């Protein structure tokens, strides 16, 4: 039987661009280029490796986001995923993690799955809680923050490297896995992959198809509210000295003045 893998990916503003907030205090996407979140590339890579080891597997990439988010799906398809689902709806604008996770959970259930794979966090919000929330919503085991993952006989095993210990984890499918950037370098799409991606199916779903009311998502349906967002004042220019043999001593003098020594 085919192993159905759903990989959740996010289209994020490029971190090297000038990211800022729009007037409604949501992320301004107009002025910054977007791309597939780097941490989600590792999720796609692990899905591809799992599929290569399986007798028969199908990888669906799923994203929730505006029209441009298709770019993230195309990237994942060109890496080797089989098909894509794009959930797009004007009412989604401004959704927080609870709204987004609701949409993802409904879409994953509609698509059908044995295994859900996500990155450890997005590179824009960087909360890192979506995988756990998704597992809770789906009612499946979470096997999160893995640096190594393996699927065998309906069981997922993996290694989680925490602050104080390294743990070996195990759960039965269906399950949700999240992977860290230590799980293995993500492959670059080949020319062949890029050409093939153009022919792969991309389905578009809206809220109605997922039986989600518009007031459950978006800014209005968020369970959190941002009251203000202010650019951090530029740091006042620090003292910069050129080392001419006494740089270490001068630095020690500064640290002593600040009472660090």
């Amino acid at each position: 039987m085919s192993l159905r893998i759903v990989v959740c990916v996010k289209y994020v503003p490029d971190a090297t661009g000038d990211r800022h907030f729009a007037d409604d205090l949501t992320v301004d996407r107009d002025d910054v280029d977007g791309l597939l979140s780097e941490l989600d590339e590792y999720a796609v890579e692990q899905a591809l490796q799992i599929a290569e080891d399986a007798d028969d597997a199908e990888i669906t990439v799923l994203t929730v986001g505006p029209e441009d988010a298709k770019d993230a799906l195309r990237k994942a398809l060109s890496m080797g995923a089989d098909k894509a689902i794009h959930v797009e709806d004007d009412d989604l604008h401004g959704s927080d993690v609870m709204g987004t996770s609701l949409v993802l959970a409904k879409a994953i259930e509609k698509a059908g799955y044995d295994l859900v794979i996500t990155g450890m966090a997005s590179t824009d919000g960087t909360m890192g809680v979506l995988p756990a929330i998704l597992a809770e919503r789906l009612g499946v085991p979470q096997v999160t923050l893995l640096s190594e993952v393996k699927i065998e006989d309906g069981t997922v095993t993996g290694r989680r490297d925490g602050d104080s210990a390294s743990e070996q984890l195990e759960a039965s499918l269906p399950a949700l896995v999240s992977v860290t950037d230590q799980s293995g370098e993500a492959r670059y799409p080949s020319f062949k992959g890029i050409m093939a991606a153009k022919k792969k199916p991309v389905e578009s779903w809206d809220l109605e198809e997922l039986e989600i009311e518009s007031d459950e998502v978006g800014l209005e349906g968020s369970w959190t509210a941002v009251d203000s967002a202010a650019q951090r004042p530029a740091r006042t220019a620090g003292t910069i000295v050129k080392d001419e043999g006494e740089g270490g001593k001068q630095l020690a003098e500064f640290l002593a003045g600040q009472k660090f020594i």
Partner: protein
Amino acid sequence: MAEVLVYVDHVDGAVRKPTLELLTLARRIGEPVAVALGAGAEATAAVLAEHGAVKVLTADAPEFADYLVVPKVDALQAAYEAVSPAAVLVPSSAEGKEIAARLAVRIGSGIITDAVDLEVGDEGPVATQAAFAASFTTKSRVSKGTPVITVKPNSAPVEAAPAAGAVEALAVTFGALATGTKVVSRTPRESTGRPELTEAAIVVSGGRGVNGAENFHIIEALADSLGAAVGASRAAVDAGWYPHSNQVGQTGKSVSPQLYIASGISGAIQHRAGMQTSKTIVAINKDAEAPIFDLVDYGVVGDLFAVVPQLTEEIQARKG
């Protein structure tokens, strides 16, 4: 006065510092009720009471150690139902965030993560967060349900505030999902004797300029002279010079110490995302154009192999 649940991060009864910081913040909002789980839970009571816990709810069961996260969520939910708190505060560790997130879904509440400050607002606690590699500061609140907020280490001072700290056993019923993810084995990380990176008051980091694993002892020696934790940039970690557990940055750990010393680190946005909220920033780099110098309070343009050992020696000399 409203009660505030505080999830206790401890190792066999030894309470970690971020939990004591949480108690300081919790007292601004109400009366802290601590929840301590697992082996040694009861042993946490004395220090929690010293820092303001009016009550300490404890539970121990093999499930807490043998399965991932969910048994602790079941317990925190039991505490939530027993207390009806005004807010739930959890330390922003990887595990803490997962526990808080699942609890929030269950109780139908919004969640805020990685707060760096908390204050009382008209509509409940207001959390300060850093956004976009700490180039923005936002103020947010939970608008639905009981605020569930995770707080980063070093966000508040640890203050003594003696309270009753009465220990009460918490009755926990584990749900069907509690045993879903088995912890097959656990290998404790070898202790370096240095402070935990995310909690340390001073962090000394090395990057590409350190130029090899064999040179990291220079960074470690400086760290030890200051009682600091050692960090590394992604370049140094990817090159295999230092463990990933010490990586500071967007895909590693986010730190917010009193003092951050960057050696041989250019300061790419991904690194800045992990350290820009540090109070005082110092850099040593031979490239005067390195972007890290835009952030510093004090910078030395020079060869780290000359500057860092001299600094270490001078610190030791001053300490006598």
